[in-house]
């Protein structure tokens, strides 16, 4: 049985007929064609598939696409600042928060969700709030620096405005 799915993906309206058992991550990757969101496990282990649903960081592998009817989904492809990297992305680039890059889209979206809720988290908060995202390259050291870089960037941007 297919159901009607009407939602916003990265600000664009989409209307699709989807099976009830279709995962949001498979919908994004295979139906919409946005392959930036990655799959790293067999369900709920690694956080690589993190996207924002109505502004909150969620595992898209634990979400059925059909449950997103009427909602707004944001993926890594939505980020950017006038064609250049967003503050969080810049933090990941300049501080080497990404090595192999496979956990990066989920990691960046988790950071995006965190900073929208709490624009100035301390290190402890970053660690706890992002703890469901796994990275095997960095030991997390430089990911924390990347998020802290973004916090400072966004703060000085706000002050300038």
């Amino acid at each position: 049985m297919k159901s009607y799915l009407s939602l916003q993906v990265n600000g664009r309206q989409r209307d699709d007929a989807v099976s009830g058992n279709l995962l949001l991550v498979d919908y994004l990757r295979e139906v919409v064609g946005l392959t930036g969101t990655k799959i790293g496990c067999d369900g709920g282990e690694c956080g690589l598939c993190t996207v924002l649903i109505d502004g909150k960081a969620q595992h898209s592998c634990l979400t059925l696409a059909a449950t997103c009817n009427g909602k707004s989904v944001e993926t890594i492809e939505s980020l950017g600042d006038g064609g250049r990297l967003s503050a969080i992305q810049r933090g990941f680039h300049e501080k080497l928060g990404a090595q192999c890059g496979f956990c990066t889209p989920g990691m960046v979206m988790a950071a995006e969700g965190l900073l929208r809720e709490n624009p100035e988290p301390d290190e402890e908060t970053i660690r706890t709030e992002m703890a469901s995202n796994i990275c095997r390259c960095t030991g997390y050291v430089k990911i924390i620096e990347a998020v802290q870089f973004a916090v400072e960037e966004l703060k000085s941007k706000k002050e300038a405005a």
Partner: protein
Amino acid sequence: MDGNGTPPSPVKSIGVPLPMVDGPEKISGRAQYTSDFYDPSALAGAIKRSTVAHARILNVDTSAAEALHGVHAVITGSETDEGHGVLPISRTELPIAHDKVRYRGEPVAAVAADSIEIAIKACGLIKVEYDELPAYFTAEEALSEDAIDLHDHREGNIERHVEFEIGDPDEGFAEADLVHETEYHCAEVCQVQTEPHAAYAEYDGERDELTVRASTQVPYYVHLMLSKILKMPKSKIRVIKPYIGGGFGCRTEALNVEMITAMLARRAKGTVRTVISREDTFITHRGRQEQTVKIRMGMAKDGRVTAVDCKTIQRGGAHSGYGIVTILYAGSMLFAIYDLHHVRYDGKRVLTNTPPCGAFRGHGTVNTRHAFENAMDEMAEKLGLDPFEVRRINLIKELGFTASDQWINSYGLPECLDVVERASGWRDRIGNLPPGKGLGLGCSHYISGASKPVNWTGEPHATINLKLDFDGSVVILTGASEIGQGSNTILVQCVAEVLGIDPSRVKVVDADSRVTPKDNGSYSSRVTYMVGNAAIEAANNLKGVLMEAAARKFEVSPEDVECLGEVYRAGTQDEGMTFEEVVMAALEGTGTITVKGNFDTLPESWGGKKYRGAAIGGTMAFSYAAQVVEVTVDPNTAEITVDKVWVAHDCGKALNPLTVEGQIQGSVWMGMGQALTEETAYHDGLLISGNMLDYRVPTFVDSPPIETHIVESNDPHGPFGAKEAGEASLAGFLPALTSAVANAMGVRVHELPVTPDRLLQLLEDKEREMRAATAAE
């Protein structure tokens, strides 16, 4: 020349913390990994796996699967009789088991179908009849006298038994003031790179040609194995390495995933995409083996190690993989870190009915280093010596050859020790810490590329092509595998530095067998050292071409041309020519320019002939690391918190301090996983830890700050003096952790991982003993 008349100077690229050149692609989601390739016509591949650990295959009935609507190809072990493997002498593993299965999860058939759901359903319809055989899940069981052989050509289930004696160990022990024996056990661990294995194979039936994309660290070994398995000429195969989500060694040999996908594509006469699950990625394995290490060490009163006797047994799993190499490294890498002269080694690699092990980061060295460093600390304690003192008195006195004929040309370990001693405040803090807190030290080392390749063909170790064309960009064509370690960035920096140009002018095209020069791949920390040197040679050759072109225009001899990177000039007052003008001059009459650079190891680095296999352990340069780990142990639960790590790594010249730091931190952290939580677990050969939660990958909240120091010993043969940065810092964490726990609690855990239950048991034993002793008084 600027308005002030200052000439432009060549751009500095080396030693600069340049963010990765492919960072923006990865961070924006644009980077395409193997599983990101979709095509509406692509079929889904699925692998049917053995449900038993050891059995003869009596029959595989695929008829129901083949009859299922939407199934395009079903293959079994009869698809190929060619085996694969690392060394030419041990290519006995079949991509799909044929007459025998040797571990639970070994492929027994595979399907290509319209959808993954149909492919999985078809796998379920394949009936395999097994005649079960006795199965052995530990090295001890496989070595028992009545055990049957897993492989006919490996009697007694011994994949390789390595024995050597260097110097005179008996004399060394006689010289010792203290002789001590100790044993350590290390659990099997897996790389758990975040990207599950994937392959995407396109078969062109018209031309009988194959294009394969695969999540591999060694695209050219994959090419070689595909040709062998499929019995196709190499010229009809093209292998492309897309972006790779890490590897840490599990992808340093061709894996059954890519071979099976290629066979399915040919059979289905189309395109097949296979992405295996996390659980199956664990089962494909190639991780670090379970291992017991027994060390008998002789020590003089002052801490000098007079003799070492090391006996080790590795549970290698069901196939050879890198096994022979691993068991040789475990012996040879006893050397080249301290000044050792009398060493006896006995290492056995055992075949068991568990998934095959392989070359995990720190390949071969980690578990023996763990036992060795712990043995030193145990003896230091008995002799009343400080751990730093014991390391220092055993430092190598002069550069040159070790007793095992390994070649040491640079040695930054002394400085690494000084740095972490100072940074951690060791002198003031050791012995004065509050209860439950402890500090521990560990040292480790690694090779910068194996000086002999596993496939000896007579080709150079590394080749780089540089292409220069009308657009003024320099394109690096390299077969080297960027897998996230930043090798493309390092190559850009090497080329930009030689030419003095802005690194943004240098672009990379990598790892496509149709386009790029062959490269052995990313393993044994070879890329920066070997491919970096080749890149420097190529860039120097290109610079020569540009100097000549400029000289022609200036009507001077090339020696009189000055290269300022973006400007070339003939005299100091001369305005000169821009880089782009020189490029156009160089193209006159010849068109697009391609130059090449090679790298080969020097024969002195090939390792000795003192025992069979002594070449394993030979390298042009050893890297070194020292680290101090601080822990807090909860006295009630024995839960261990790593408060902080101070690490110093001698990587020669740090070509890119940013990526070097990233490599060091990743290594330390991966060592922490092995030391504290990670362990694969099997029940009768069935993997029961096949996910990141049960396997216990450390998260943000389990991970300590890692204060990272770079020590630059500048290797005489390294690219700009560089050595490896991505492996040596792993092994030292393990002994530093057990020593820190011993410092905190007075007990040393001899089994890895150091879980709270293991530690609590020792603490309770100790308390019971103390109570008994008090009662006896």
